[in-house]
């Protein structure tokens, strides 16, 4: 199969994908379009169907219904070895009996690329990912970070229409992971290759992605830029899964001609969709909450139970009538000692609507 690059088509399109293992649905009616050159992340908890979705793109799994298009060509039934995408495996899966060079050249050799061209492309790619010095080591003699880079090179050297990455950084320690995140992003930008990146690490997804798709229980809940996902989650699950959240219930009433949520006797802003006489669930992110001296009007009242310094921010735990809330403030703010009474408030646009509370 040799699809001609077609930059007018999306890189990958999934239409009405259904996939079940026996009776257990893994992916339910999934539609997704990934643009050329995009860094797209599939984010969700383990078992949400993100890896299954990725493996269907790679050709290791086949959907029960729906179709998959790559550069506008239907590849739904095309097996992995004839699909022009490459996968970076979670455990790298390098071939331990081969040198780094032979590992990276494997795909080109299988596709019968001329020897000289293989050598050039392999060398170039090894330099790109920064493991040129280890070219003649055996794959099993490399550190985790080096293996990661070789795995990346082994996939990218084939110039895939899209690079699929299955939690590629999860085996690395935190420091290395942070560095690789930035490197991956920069490599992607340099090569302009479409990346589809599966992760359960929301921070990673928010940091690297152009767009993110949030999955849970086999469904794609929301697709958007990191800002959209974080700021205006379309779904309680998304809101809860991405970033930290203070969620609580309020009673919706008209207070002074405005529809407000009443908490602890104080009116707070509620979404416009909230209707009076109902109980509503709302949420506010810790960094959108403000904390100040006790006694402020139209605010929640509570007492600081804990104060933590997180480098550039202060993080309070505040006991309130709606439960314990987490509030973050800039390090320059006045510190509120544990035990002191405080007021907590937030701007109207900070409220995330979680819908009517179920009794």
């Amino acid at each position, binding site marked *: 199969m040799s699809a001609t690059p077609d930059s007018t088509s999306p890189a990958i399109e999934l239409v009405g994908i259904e996939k079940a293992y026996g009776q257990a649905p893994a992916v339910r009616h999934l539609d997704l379009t990934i643009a050329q050159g995009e860094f797209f992340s599939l984010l969700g908890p383990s078992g949400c169907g993100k890896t299954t979705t990725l493996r269907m793109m790679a050709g290791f799994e086949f959907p029960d219904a729906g179709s998959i298009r790559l550069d506008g060509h239907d590849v739904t039934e095309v097996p*992995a070895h004839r699909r022009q995408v490459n996968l970076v495996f979670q455990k790298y899966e390098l071939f331990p009996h081969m040198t780094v060079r032979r590992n990276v050249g494997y795909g080109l050799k299988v596709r019968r690329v001329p020897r000289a061209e293989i050598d050039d492309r392999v060398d170039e790619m090894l330099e790109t990912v920064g493991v040129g010095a280890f070219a003649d080591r055996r794959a099993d003699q490399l550190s985790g970070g080096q293996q990661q880079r070789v795995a990346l090179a082994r996939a990218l050297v084939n110039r895939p229409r899209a690079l699929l990455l299955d939690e590629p950084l999860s085996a690395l320690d935190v420091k290395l992971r942070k560095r690789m995140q930035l490197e991956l992003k920069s490599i992607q930008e340099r090569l302009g290759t479409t990346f589809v990146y599966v992760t359960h690490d929301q921070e990673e997804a928010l940091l690297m992605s152009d767009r993110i798709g949030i999955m849970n229980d086999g469904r794609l809940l929301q697709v958007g830029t990191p800002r959209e996902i974080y700021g205006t989650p379309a779904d309680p699950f998304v809101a809860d899964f991405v970033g930290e959240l203070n969620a609580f219930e309020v009673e919706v009433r008209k207070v002074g001609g405005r529809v407000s949520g009443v908490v602890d006797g104080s009116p707070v802003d509620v979404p416009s969709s909230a209707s009076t006489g109902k109980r509503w669930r709302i949420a506010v992110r810790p960094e959108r909450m403000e904390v100040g001296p006790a006694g402020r009007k139209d605010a929640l009242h509570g007492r600081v139970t804990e104060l933590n310094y997180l480098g550039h921010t202060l993080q309070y735990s505040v006991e309130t009538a709606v439960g314990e809330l987490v509030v973050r403030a800039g390090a320059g703010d006045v510190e509120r000692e544990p035990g002191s009474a405080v007021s907590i408030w937030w701007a109207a646009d900070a409220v995330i609507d979680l819908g009517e509370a179920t009794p």
Partner: protein
Amino acid sequence: MKPNRIVAALQLAPASVYYSALFGAPLLVLVAYSFYTTENFDFVPEFTLDNYVTAWTSEVYRTYFIRTLRISAITAAVIAVVAFFYSYVITYTLRAHRSLLYFFVLVSMFGGYLVRIYAWRSIFGTEGIANSALMSTGIIAEPLDLLRNGEFAIIIAMINFYLPLGILPIYAAMQNVGPGQIEAAQDLGSSRLGAAGKIVLPLALRGVTVAFVFTFIATAAEWLTPQLLGGTEDQMIGNRIAYQFGAGFDWPLGAALAVTLVVVLAVLLGALFTVVRRWVR
């Protein structure tokens, strides 16, 4: 000696004693015998090379050795190939059922050698199950020579007997090659078979070699199978060795033949290991 060396030595002691007493010592005695002669049922401990001259130069024994090596090589090669694919299937393709399939391998070792050899006896032969079935279905009109007692019957039966011996090392070796590595190869453009050949085979090659060697050695020393399933001209060297140690009452010649077999196997298999090691690199 450092304390941990002493511990290691103590741990090795039972196995060392076992091997030297039950394997090493008789082997040495066997070697000693091969330089003796017999006279009137007594061993004459006068050094002679006559037995080796007979073992190495007699056309009769050369025929037996060549036949033995041929039969064993074919059997071991078929076993290595079949065992590789069986191990491949239970490790990767039918991974979910691998416990059961592995159990089948072990089950096939039950029932003992004699029961199975007699089962094969009823299959092969002029009126064996194989020929009878083919004739009653009209596929053949006359009994096939191939399905009578003979080399083919010996090989088929020995494949059956020794297949587990081949599967175990290959299966064990394959456990070090994750299904992910096969997927990686496929992802890079190899077909399933290509991945089996380029990735699984080299990684499991040590196991395949061990399987070949195990089964080669085991079958080269066979004598019961050729006796019961062979025709009148398909006896192996093991039959002659058994004869010399039995009714022939020429233990020195039997010992010389046995030592010769050991040496020939050691040389051939040593060469095989060398070739394989070079090839893997």
